[in-house]
């Protein structure tokens, strides 16, 4: 017997094969009926945004992965309550932000140092994400040091400043989108972004080699 998943996709199962062309509202409607494939498609669409947000907020892959998964599970369970009065991404960000805040409450005792993600090897500890395009070992060390310095500085920012930098600079959302996600007005977004950039700059200035002055 052929299972539905094994069945040929064209012309069979056209509604599934065209999922990637559906707009969010269609996928949401289907997800509300328990269609996991439709929800998978939503996950695919917003995976990078949500993961990057979680990763940059926590500065730790394990934590980010937990938060990422928890956020999407929450979203799936609660999608019936999603109303189209906001963008789906806004709703998702609110969820991942809440999951993050809850998680951090539980882990409040954990120092930032433990959030640095190193891998223990026989030769000691190395950072996991040295994956630049074939740099020389010396360049790799330099790049990694710069990256770690920036990540450390971001991790030391207050959460409100960190999240706005991630949303604006990395995830590239507009002032208006950020205002909707954070539930603040656009003017507050601008002033908070200004403070966050200055605060980060002041921390980074301790690492003179990061700047070309």
């Amino acid at each position, binding site marked *: *017997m*052929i*299972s*539905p998943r094994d*069945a*040929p996709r064209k*012309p*069979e*199962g*056209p*509604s599934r*094969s*065209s999922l990637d*062309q*559906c707009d969010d*509202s*269609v996928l949401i*409607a*289907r997800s*509300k*009926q*328990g269609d*996991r494939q439709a929800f*998978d498609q939503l*996950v695919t669409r917003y*995976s*990078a945004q949500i*993961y*990057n947000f979680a*990763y*940059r907020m926590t500065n730790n892959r394990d934590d980010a*992965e937990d938060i*990422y*998964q928890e956020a*999407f*599970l929450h979203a*799936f*369970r609660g999608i*019936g309550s999603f109303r189209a009065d906001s963008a789906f991404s806004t709703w998702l960000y609110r969820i991942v932000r809440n999951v993050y805040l809850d998680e951090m409450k539980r882990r409040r005792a954990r120092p930032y140092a433990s959030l640095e993600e190193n891998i223990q090897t026989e030769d000691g500890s190395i950072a996991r994400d040295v994956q*630049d395009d074939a740099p020389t070992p010396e360049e790799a060390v330099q790049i990694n040091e*710069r*990256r770690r310095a*920036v*990540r450390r500085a971001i991790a030391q920012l207050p959460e409100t400043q960190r999240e706005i*930098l991630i949303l604006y*600079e*990395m*995830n590239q959302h507009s002032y208006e989108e950020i205002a909707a996600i954070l539930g603040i007005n656009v003017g507050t977004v*601008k002033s908070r*972004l*200004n403070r966050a*950039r200055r605060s*980060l*700059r002041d921390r*980074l*200035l301790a690492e003179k080699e*990061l*700047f*070309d*002055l």
Partner: protein
Amino acid sequence: MCNEARPIDLWGEFMGCQGYQRSFTAYLDGELAQGQREAIERHVQRCAECRRDLETLRQTVRLLRSPLLPMEDAPEEVRARLTQKLRAVRQPMSWWERVRLQWRVAGAASQARTWGYGLAATALLFVVGASNLDRWNAPANPLHVGVGVSRTEALPRPDGHVAARLPQPVGEGVQIRSFVEYPVVVGRPAIVYLFVEPGRDLPDGEVRLYPAAGLSVGGPGVLQSDASYLLYQGPVTRQNPQSRWIPVELCAAREGTHILRVTVREAGRVLSEVTIPLRAVVPRS
């Protein structure tokens, strides 16, 4: 501190270097008018402190947007674990499940009398997801739509767009009990849910759709009207939600009534065939 004598009106009453510096974020984001940008550029040429302030901010922003901190996506194995977990998650009872429950509670006794021992399968068509359903005053709450289904004899007919069909035998062991029809909007994809309830288990079942000409499956631009679509293949049972509640994305190319033909087969043999009219309308402006 720089003592710029003549401030510019970037931040209202914030004058002098403080006023300029508060505008640097907007400057870097390209949010300022040309005159304001030029005023800042003139100012930083004269003021070393503001020049340094702006330059270090610019480089900070550049660092944040550099490949040093790339956009990260979840690793494949994390996605795979999430997919597994999603399979195991049970959503809170969805509206159609509530509908079904109500229908069973309200109609179980009379249904049993009417259709004997349940040797019936129900093909129930819903059109949901068509945007702007409220233009026709259709109930916004899908639960309400479903409640209508539970009252076959007295369906609400909001604005005349809900039609009830009496039970009609359509094949061996299969009946259309009722369906609710909402119009779809021409040119806009809509999700149609096909509800198949077999009177007995079909271990090697199959549900197939033959859309009419002018009705594409899979969204606009994918017109394959001559093809049949295998919507489901596998056990068709009351316990198998995949076989009971099958979503199809349809898009009507033109106004009018389109006929969907649905067959339920077992081991390749057609047990029943139903035709379901689907109305497509052009939205009123």
